[in-house]
């Protein structure tokens, strides 16, 4: 099953390779990984998406927690959460397809961020499944280039 895990880390050299080394060394999966500073410049937040049964996810969270530079590990998918991913796509946009591309971008509430005579660069954010849907629809029109960020996620606040 897919899990989204959020890790707060000391922002020190080599800390990312401690995390990725742990995953490769123990044969755990990383589907996507995103990392950047938090409000405090000496703390980073890393969001990673991984798959595994409960047994494996328990090991992953425990092993992450065991790293000296790790401050906090949360399996966000344990509870209600929001996740977002962003994709930049360069799509073929000639006289025949331009209107169709714009329509799709509009439906998915995306933005055109770069225009050339033969292509549009578009930006779309959303859940991983929405991103996948956009890609599937634009693919027949001709995707020339694609860059995805990987998922970031945040637990929903308690209601009330």
């Amino acid at each position: 099953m897919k899990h989204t895990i959020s890790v707060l880390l000391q922002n020190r050299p080599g800390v990312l390779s401690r995390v990725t080394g742990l995953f490769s060394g123990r044969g755990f999966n990383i589907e996507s990984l995103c990392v950047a500073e938090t409000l405090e410049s000496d703390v980073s937040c890393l969001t990673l998406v991984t798959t595994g049964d409960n047994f494996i996810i328990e090991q992953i969270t425990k092993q992450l927690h065991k790293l000296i530079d790790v401050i906090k590990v949360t399996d966000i998918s344990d509870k209600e959460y929001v996740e977002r991913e962003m994709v930049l796509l360069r799509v073929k946009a000639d006289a025949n397809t331009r209107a169709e591309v714009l329509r799709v971008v509009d439906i998915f509430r995306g933005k055109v961020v770069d225009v050339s005579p033969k292509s549009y660069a578009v930006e779309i954010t959303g859940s991983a499944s929405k991103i996948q849907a956009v890609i599937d629809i634009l693919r027949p029109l001709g995707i020339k280039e694609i860059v995805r960020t990987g998922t970031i996620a945040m637990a929903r606040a308690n209601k009330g």
Partner: protein
Amino acid sequence: MKKITGSQAIVKCLQEEGIKTLFGFPGGAVLDLYDQLYDADIQHVLVRHEQGAVHAADAYARVTGEVGVALLTSGPGATNGVTGIATAYMDSIPIVILTGQVPTPLIGNDAFQEVDIVGITRPCTKHNYLVKTSADLVPTIREAFHIARSGRPGPVLIDLPKDVVAGMISYPEKKPIRMPNYQPTYEPHIGQIAKACKAILASSRPVLYVGGGVILADAHTELIELATRLNIPVTMTLMGLGAFPGSHGLSMGMLGMHGTYAANMAVADCDLLIAVGARFDDRVTGRLDAFARNAEIIHIDIDPTSISKNVKVNIPIVADCKYALTAINNWLNSETIPKPGDASARHQDWLATINQWKTDHPLSYKDEGDIIKPQYVVEKLDELTQGEAIITTEVGQNQMWAAQFYKFNKPRRFVTSGGLGTMGFGLPAAIGAKIAFPDRHVIDIAGDGSIQMNIQELATARQYKCPVKIAILNNGYLGMVRQWQELFYDKRYSSTIMDTAPDFVELARAFGAVGLRAVRKSEVVPVIKEALATDNVVIMDFKVAKEEGVYPMVPAGKATTEMLLV
């Protein structure tokens, strides 16, 4: 405040941490430090290969319970130490490794003797550091020692660029270590303790399965109290040997691949398995789905990642073994039953079954006239040292025979590479142990293959007047691999025949040590006696039965009840 050099600060900081001995090998990147050590009040043991320095520091830590320290130069000095570091990591041994590094402006430039040792050792250290400024030196060293010795212990490496060590600093005052993110759990959860105690009292066929964690936590007294008050039979892992007295009636000896028949049968048949400071290693469990199939499992371990890693646990207790066992004993004290005196009445049927297993299939070997059986040598070493020696081992058959036939009655007497299985460990380890305890007999039980992996350390032993004894069980083979080839590869002895070996007696002489040889059984005792009476390094070359195997043996992937017996 008066400024001092980085190297002065490092030495001062090491002394502050109580370090009296370093094991190391000099080089360009650590010249400043070595200059400081020239007249410092700290002993430096010059090894002949950096792997030996780390193994010696590791053994020093294993026998004393303190942190061992190794000092290596950059590049090849550091990489030569990696096997030693991985060895300590697998067995959770607290050591600090100081490595030299090229000056910071050269890092990343492929400078002479530069290597990214922090990157290389990341997966085999508990933590590691590259010190970037002189001001960070002392706080980093303090933190490193704290990490090495606390929680589940382990090796910590500090990489020291030459310019950082040469810099001037004012020595920072010692403050309590503050690491909010690193807080190992020592105290057990009291609710879990109560649950465990109730399970223990309700059990009719309990087994204590004890690992190296009990030794690391110095929890042997508490373990003996628990086992004897409730008559619970005890089995130990390779790393746990000595945690419970091997000659005690409740001891079943080692379990697992080369464990005793009684221990493996008892674990398979028990209704409650109490794992203390052990990690359900594959050499212990054999086929997982058949391991302790009928048992409820209590698992005490300070490292949460060890719990439910290989085997599903019913009552997990994350805690230091000493704290947890104390809490269990206290809980039992507060109950009306059973008082310590009732112990003799408990589990009589269960113990009778176990004793029957012990009688039916004791550890044994076939005596063959005047041929020396390796097991006989270990028995005689045990007898002639009254089980009081510190035994180090290499890896392979020699290690298993040492584990089976030397009766370890006290903790910190058996020094062996358990997790990594490092050949070449025994001799440098013996030196480290002997430096820690000059008045004890220290014997490396070795094979003719393993001993050649770090034989150069004979010179170190001689230089520092460490009269360690080396008992080579010489069968002219890489015996354990040969045994597998015999059993599972149709006796195709691919690259395991070691018939070209040095004359170990002559070799000893070349190093200024003493060489003795026994080729007949009747010569074994006189050779051991002479070795123990000699105030010099001694190699005992025992020409043993060539194709002797280690039994019982659980073939890889089989259930531990499917033992091949003698």
